[in-house]
């Protein structure tokens, strides 16, 4: 029973979307995202962002996420928008299936911590974000 539960958990975790960074950080500012994993695999993402900086991400599961929605717990700290990225992405498991990328842009508005929640038909992911003040 425990083994079956473990297998089910691994399968569910493996099916959740993967987020990838699609834009560089500007000079002297912070914009990076890292995976936070435990024994069961990827749990969530952590991101460090400077105020005034934007970072683009794509969502795949493994083809571009379907019906993606994005919400910031505190839009005064982090604003999040859907993005129109005119790039086709192939499903690595499908021979002919390719779809337009599912993308989002995260913007650091004010120093603080909050969470951005990415939901889609293919599963959900949280990004725990720390916004740091930009040097004056």
């Amino acid at each position: 029973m425990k083994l079956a539960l473990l297998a089910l958990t691994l399968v569910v975790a493996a099916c959740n979307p993967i987020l990838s960074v699609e834009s560089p950080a500007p000079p002297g500012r912070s914009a990076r995202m890292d995976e936070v994993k435990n024994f069961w695999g990827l749990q969530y993402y952590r991101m460090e962002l400077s105020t005034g900086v934007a970072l683009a991400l794509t969502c795949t599961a493994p083809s571009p996420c379907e019906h993606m929605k994005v919400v910031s717990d505190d839009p005064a700290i982090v604003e999040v928008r859907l993005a129109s990225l005119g790039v086709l992405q192939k499903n690595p498991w499908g021979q002919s299936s390719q779809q337009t990328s599912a993308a989002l842009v995260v913007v650091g508005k004010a120093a603080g911590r909050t969470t951005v929640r990415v939901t889609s038909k293919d599963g959900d992911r949280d990004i725990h974000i720390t916004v740091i003040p930009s040097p004056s």
Partner: protein
Amino acid sequence: MWFLLGLSACGTAGALHQTTLMGQCATDDAACSRRHPVAPIAVGARFHPEVEADLAGSTTPNLRLESAASDVLAVEGDALVAKKAGASAVLITTDDGSVVDFVHMWVAPITTISLARRDGDRLTGDVGLAVGEDLVIAPALWHDAQRLAGEADLAWTSSNPAALEIMRDGSTDRRRLRARTPGKTTITVALGETKASIDVEVLP
């Protein structure tokens, strides 16, 4: 092919490589202060951007600009207005708020003003003009050795307005100097405490 792309790539490409942001300048206007979109914008200056999109299978949709940090760089009408030193992402969005691209832009304080002829040739010494002759002068804004972008509301003064008249020429920052009567004058261009000046002698 790449050479042709290089010739046309005179603006700043967005982080998602879908748009190019450039200043609104005539192609033969060497002194246009809006020509430098890759440079930081001077504090207090306005920059009028032009955005071109390169989207596969689509012409450019209706686009809007939004600033990530409006205390650093604000969007006011069709201009970006530099408020204080720093950096801000400028989001290029469609009408429904979907982000097509973004560019990180910098704002820097002005440390020096230089003066140049309209062809870009920098004025470093005294100038002589015959009565009736014109000279168009364009100021350039600098942060140390770096040329800044944007148009600032500079104050122009002449120590002898009877000898040399300062006229507007349709641009916010450029001025046309017209020699009226023989004499010597000093033209000063100032933005706050930062000043530049040239001595002009009008000859009969």
